[in-house]
């Protein structure tokens, strides 16, 4: 038995982006033991499409010459919302409403879920 959070991290390390889906069809993130609100535990794992839309974003400023980086809340097409970063964009090009697609950055110590711009 692995915990939901551990299961999610293990999947990410294997290059898979998972979400949980509750009996009523709603998508859940972060992973939980039971659906938030109802407490029902009939959750199933699904592969996320990775597609989403930028709901809101902020550019965190750094002392030059370091470039600012963005922190964004992404609304996944499945319905869940999460925090991430959209790579390859600038304060001039990244807007709320931008369609994005997830990818897993495995270059660091821990794999990290990131997003890049996507054209439907």
């Amino acid at each position: 038995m692995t915990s939901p959070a551990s299961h999610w991290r293990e999947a990410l390390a294997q290059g898979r982006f998972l979400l949980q889906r509750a009996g009523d069809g709603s998508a859940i993130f972060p992973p939980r033991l039971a659906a938030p609100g109802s407490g029902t535990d009939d959750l199933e794992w699904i592969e996320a499409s990775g597609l989403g839309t930028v709901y809101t974003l902020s550019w965190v400023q750094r002392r030059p010459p370091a470039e600012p980086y963005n922190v964004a809340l992404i609304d996944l097409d499945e319905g869940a919302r999460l925090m991430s970063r959209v790579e390859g964009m600038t304060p001039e090009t990244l807007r709320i409403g931008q369609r994005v697609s997830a990818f897993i950055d495995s270059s660091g110590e821990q794999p990290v879920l990131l997003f890049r711009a996507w054209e439907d």
Partner: protein
Amino acid sequence: MGDIFPRGRTAIAGLATFGVGETPGYSSMELTAKAALLAVADAGLTLPEVDALFICQPDDFFAGLSFAEYLGLQPRYTDNNRTGGSAFMSHMAVAALMLEAGYIDCALIAYGSNQRSNGGKLATKITSNAWDSPYAPLFPLTSYALAAARHMHEFGTTREDLAAVAMAARAWANTNPEAFAKGPLTMEDCLSARMISTPISVRDCCLVTDGAAAIVMTRTDRARDLAAAPVPLLGAAAATWWNSIAQSKDVTVTAAKESGARAMAMAGVTPPDIQTAQLYDAFTINTVLFLEDLGFCPKGEGGRFVSSGAIAPGGSLPVNTNGGGLSCCHPGMYGLFAVIEAARQIRGSAANQLPGIDLALAHGNGGTLSSQATVILGSMATV
């Protein structure tokens, strides 16, 4: 059932602030103890009469124990609720119910921090959760920036609107001797201020100061015979909708919508009845969101409401009449200072005293717009 509240049956009997601004050499414990002793004396009570302690300190998770020990209290009940800067409004709700029930007779609610003199940064050991932290949001600032950015996108709120909040706070602070940040603050100052996490600049952020605050609550019938004019508590409600901003359903609507409506229902008042509002302004967007969520203006109109001058001196709804967390003080958690300014307005002892205040609202915010708590204070005429 639910939300049955002893309207007006308990009151703030004593209050005090101490060391607001810079108080080098004092520990957080010492600042808080001094405010507590001043509040007890203000009520005309003595320390042994305190039989319940409500406290939340920035750097001491066992403050309920350590502070009781410092003052030599052996409380019947100790409450260390820490929902962030809103904790003190929750403390008041619990204290009121316990006083009414006769479980306790005299509640001391206290807070203090030396965060300015001791490092000059927000004193907190709380950080982003494990799901958010890989993306390095500034804690807690970027969460508020995410709310502000969405509010701008949805409702056309501008940086000028946010600046109007900071400028109103400064205008109030300029005539409050206790306020830490004084002097002119122009639109140009705000718009050209160093950006931290878009759209929040330095001028959208609360101060980092020292300071302590304390109140003493008793049943109103007892407070009537004490040294200071009692300030009855008419309603108090707290609501928690999320912890991480990523888990909000709508970042432009906070749980203040729930806590405010419930507290006002308990008090039997509606937003137009409130004569002054003291809103926890950790960032300028807070004031905009809480004005909307508490019902002082429609959702989305907060920016235009503040830019109209409504909350500034001379406006239709005086807000943060001490200068708020933006210009009066912000020792890490501001909630109790908002309560005290509301109570002072009702007592008639505020630095920027407004005429004939019978109803005042104080609203606390905790976490990253996560926990919201509202109290309604009245004069004895409202009981």
